[in-house]
């Protein structure tokens, strides 16, 4: 059995966890920065970097104390090395390097997206490769064939905005606060999802990708028109996102060149109950198992980084201490570029 210490700091969460190769979560600590960001309606990176720097060392100590372990008993240090807000990523990665160097432990630099991609395997021991992953978060919206540790093929991505970004901007347009996902979901519960006619970009399109920029513009026009209730706009927006995610995932499932063991959903947007239910139904329609990590593992956390680091460590993949933080870091570097709206890939 190996024990991995995982550090995550690529966006607004500072998180540290200790996870074993037997899928035991010995401790996980999270210092959410949402309070610090709320006045800004978003994540401001310098605030994020400063807050990460203040919180990370006490969190490492607390995680070790919770698990009743000394650093010497840990087998490897895993830290997010990107993609994300560069200031925050650097704080976590440098902390990981310092711990690895000081304790003489190997460092595993983890791609934040790989953390999400493998997180379902932490809580579901039966989940086998390959599977189809819908990764939906504040910075990403992708469909990936997960074929093994470090083996990801991107089948589709957003050609403009990420799904979570659309939630955040909609929340801001509607004055619902931050974080946008839970705020829009709560407002949508009180609204009519058919009240506001909104577009479903790329619905039914032969190309595989996602698009949310046009939806965002339509939400803005609806909000400015004064013709609709805020809750109705939120509910109609959420329904439009659901329809797009289901349509694009359905298209991917119909065109797969491999037999997936399951449809897996991960990333912060996977915490949305309406979206989760819709994807679960789609999975059932395809006779496929549906796996989504528990809600706390969908949003950013240290356990998924520790787990992904552990999977890489078990595969013999460690990194030198001079590895650089990367603000952009695609999981599938061989994927065809999708540069923006109108560019076919």
């Amino acid at each position, binding site marked *: 059995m190996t024990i991995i210490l995982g550090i995550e700091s690529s*966006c607004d969460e500072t998180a540290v966890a200790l996870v074993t190769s037997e899928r035991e979560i010995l401790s996980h600590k999270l210092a959410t920065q949402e309070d610090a960001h709320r006045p*800004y309606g978003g994540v401001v990176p310098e605030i994020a970097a400063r807050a990460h720097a203040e919180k990370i060392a006490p969190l490492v100590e607390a995680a070790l104390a919770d698990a009743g372990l000394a650093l010497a008993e840990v087998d490897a240090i895993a830290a997010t090395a990107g*993609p994300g807000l560069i200031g925050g990523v650097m704080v976590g990665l440098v902390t990981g390097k310092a711990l690895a160097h000081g304790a003489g432990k190997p460092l595993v630099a983890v791609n934040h997206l790989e953390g999400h991609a493998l997180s379902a395997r932490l809580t579901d021991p039966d989940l086998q490769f390959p599977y189809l992953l819908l990764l939906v978060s504040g*910075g990403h919206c992708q469909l990936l064939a997960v074929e093994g540790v470090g083996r990801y093929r991107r089948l589709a991505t957003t050609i403009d905005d990420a799904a979570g970004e659309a939630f955040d901007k909609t929340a801001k347009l509607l004055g619902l606060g931050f974080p946008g996902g839970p705020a829009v979901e709560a407002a949508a519960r009180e609204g009519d999802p058919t009240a506001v006619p909104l577009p479903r970009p790329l619905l039914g399109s032969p190309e595989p990708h996602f698009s949310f920029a046009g939806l*965002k513009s339509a939400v803005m026009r609806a909000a400015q028109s004064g013709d609709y209730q805020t809750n109705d706009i939120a509910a109609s927006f959420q329904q439009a996102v659901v329809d797009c995610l289901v349509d694009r995932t359905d298209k991917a499932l119909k065109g797969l060149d491999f037999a997936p063991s399951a449809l897996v959903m991960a990333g912060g947007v996977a915490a949305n109950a309406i979206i989760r239910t819709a994807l679960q139904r789609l999975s059932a329609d395809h006779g496929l198992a549906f796996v989504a990590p528990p809600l706390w593992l969908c949003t950013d956390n240290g356990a998924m980084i520790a787990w992904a680091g552990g999977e890489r460590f078990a595969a013999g993949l460690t990194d030198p201490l001079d590895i650089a933080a990367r*603000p*952009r870091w*695609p999981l599938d570097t061989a994927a065809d570029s999708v*540069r*923006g709206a109108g560019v076919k890939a």
Partner: protein
Amino acid sequence: MIEYGLDEIGLLGKRIARSLQPGDVVGLTGSLGAGKTTLARAILAALGLEGEAPSPSFAIVQPYAPPEVTLPVLHVDLYRIEDAAEIDELGLFDDSAHQVLLIEWPERMGQRVPAEMLNLTIDFADEARRRLTATVPPAWEGRWPPQ
């Protein structure tokens, strides 16, 4: 003023990219969905970027450096900045003589907008066409409109 169809964005990006020099600051102003990121991507593509330019809304600053582009570029989105004092801490101008800044939502800088910024305002002509209006500083005289 330049009017363009969204299908002509590649050509417009090339014209602007050809005119850029190290030290330039280009502001991209316009409402949500006007096409600020789309134009920034067209400029980055014309500067040689073959990979993707993710929307900087999430990370706020996306850096690009040679060899993937011919000039170092910071692609910035200030949409989520509400307090202009935060701008100082982003370090946008730390290497301003050597790189090009493409800044979406430059109005969020308030008093900190550089005097030498070329500001491009994008308005809807219709769903598929846009109007580009430039506010041209002395540094851009003879370079705008771009050829």
